[in-house]
């Protein structure tokens, strides 16, 4: 695997983590949205991350046997991809607010099923994930620089 495809894979990780931050921000922003485009209260969303095969091989072309794994198991590098954003359909809390414009016939308003604390934790883990991928990029950069310094 050369440096450029490794950079590409780290970049896919950065993109995925940024999507997680976007989704968490959307959930936080809509923590009190009692009305969406379809008339229902907002439902919190979750990104679905999937490992997708990358064209490069994980090891170098020098045919390093990859431990005792069965053939073809983990020999190809895999990037990450956001395959979808899923709505969490658990019902939100219902609050008695008869004066609220979105109250039902009994005076109850359904609020989104967003827990700001959970979303904040998601935000933190996504940021840490982004940091980790950025560190991988930096390491790759340093390695490439080091390799170039051999020929000085």
């Amino acid at each position, binding site marked *: 695997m050369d*440096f*450029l495809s490794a*950079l*590409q894979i*780290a*970049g896919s990780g*950065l*993109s995925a983590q*940024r999507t997680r931050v976007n989704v968490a921000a959307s959930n936080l922003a809509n923590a009190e949205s009692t009305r969406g485009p379809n008339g229902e209260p907002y439902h919190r969303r979750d990104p679905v991350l999937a490992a997708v095969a990358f064209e490069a091989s994980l090891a170098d072309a020098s045919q*390093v*046997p990859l*431990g*005792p794994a069965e053939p073809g198991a983990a020999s190809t590098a895999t990037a990450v991809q956001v395959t979808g954003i899923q709505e969490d359909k658990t019902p939100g809390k219902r609050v008695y607010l008869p004066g609220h414009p979105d109250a039902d016939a009994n005076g109850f308003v359904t609020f989104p099923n967003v827990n700001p604390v959970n979303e904040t934790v998601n935000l933190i883990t996504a940021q840490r994930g982004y940091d980790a991928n*950025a560190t991988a*990029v930096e390491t790759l*950069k340093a390695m*490439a*620089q080091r390799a*170039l310094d051999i*020929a*000085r």
Partner: protein
Amino acid sequence: MKSLSVNSVEFPSSTPAVEKPEGSGASGFGQELEAAVKKVDDLQVAADVETQKLANGDGNLHETMLALEKADIAMRLAMKVRTKLVEAYNDVMRMTV
């Protein structure tokens, strides 16, 4: 534990014969050099495109940075190769006969 096969380093007995591409009159080295320079240039162009996309507001930050980084690494490598080539040329030219 699975034993890793360890191979000794084999030196080619002589310089491998460079196959000259048939038809075209250009030498293999010239073509290789051109292809390498083209690859470096492609990465520079890709970095330019990404930067422009970012400036237009529809790029994304880290992809732009990665494109710039790739272009940078490729350019540095090209510079090193050039320096080495020129050094070798100068060494040969300075050789006292």
